[in-house]
């Protein structure tokens, strides 16, 4: 009896693959932006439709001048070099150095810079959107963003993108 109840959801999962993902990138740290990019690109690689919505500090990922210079936070990040005293992690230049090392390690794994990663996503049919409210707040215009952006949209527009069955919204 127990066995049959266990099997049912597994089978259901197989029969209903994810069709579309709508990924919200709300943070501007190197690691959070990459998490959102890997999820979007990974979806496309599986034949899943992908939309990305950049909001608040996540907007740096689609700003021409900033996207390839993101930092990973070394202070307030307990998982980053756990033996390292916070005072040292906060020294001038430390964060830039750590971020540089991180980007170098990623390149070895064939993880591209943010700009190229977004190009790959667009080439795979992924769609990129900026958040209107956050753009207004940071006083950013369309020309501050990369050309590949589909549009600057409201939260309501974002939900409209998520319409349809088997869609997942992922918040990063």
């Amino acid at each position, binding site marked *: 009896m127990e066995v049959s109840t266990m099997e049912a959801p597994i089978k259901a999962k197989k029969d209903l693959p994810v069709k579309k993902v709508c990924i919200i990138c709300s943070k501007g740290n190197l690691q959070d932006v990459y998490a959102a990019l890997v999820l979007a690109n990974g979806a496309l690689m*599986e034949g899943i439709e992908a939309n990305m919505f950049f909001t608040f500090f996540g907007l740096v990922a689609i700003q021409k001048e900033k996207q390839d210079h993101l930092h990973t936070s070394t202070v307030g990040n307990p998982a980053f070099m756990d033996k390292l005293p916070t005072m040292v992690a906060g020294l001038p230049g430390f964060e830039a150095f750590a971020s540089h090392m991180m980007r170098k390690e990623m390149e070895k794994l064939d993880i591209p810079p943010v700009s190229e990663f977004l190009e790959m996503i667009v*080439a795979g049919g992924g769609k990129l959107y900026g958040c209107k409210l956050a753009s207004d707040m940071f006083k950013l215009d369309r020309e501050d963003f990369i050309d590949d952006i589909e549009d600057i949209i409201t939260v309501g527009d974002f939900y409209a993108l998520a319409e349809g069955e088997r869609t997942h919204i992922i918040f990063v």
Partner: protein
Amino acid sequence: MPNRVLAGQSVEVNDEGYFTDPTQWSENIASELATEAGINLGPKHLDVIKFLRDRYMTGQALTIRRVGKSGLVSIKEFYDLFPGGPLKVSSKIAGIPKPASCV
């Protein structure tokens, strides 16, 4: 491991249909696998497939980015040539294991 007959030859595949022995592959087999995937195999497809096989045979990682930098096709063309997950679909047709790649 299940066996299946492709282009008149018996080949060993895993449960998902990927080859377990890439040396059993041939272009005739590729053509049959492509038809199954709804693809009419052309010279561009074969260029990519041969590139993937070369890289796999020499123990190099397979990623969409590498295919895009191969000079053979752009990433957009790669998606257009093998709809529904380019790296997976092309690897299956190329007779190599499913790439364990997140990029």
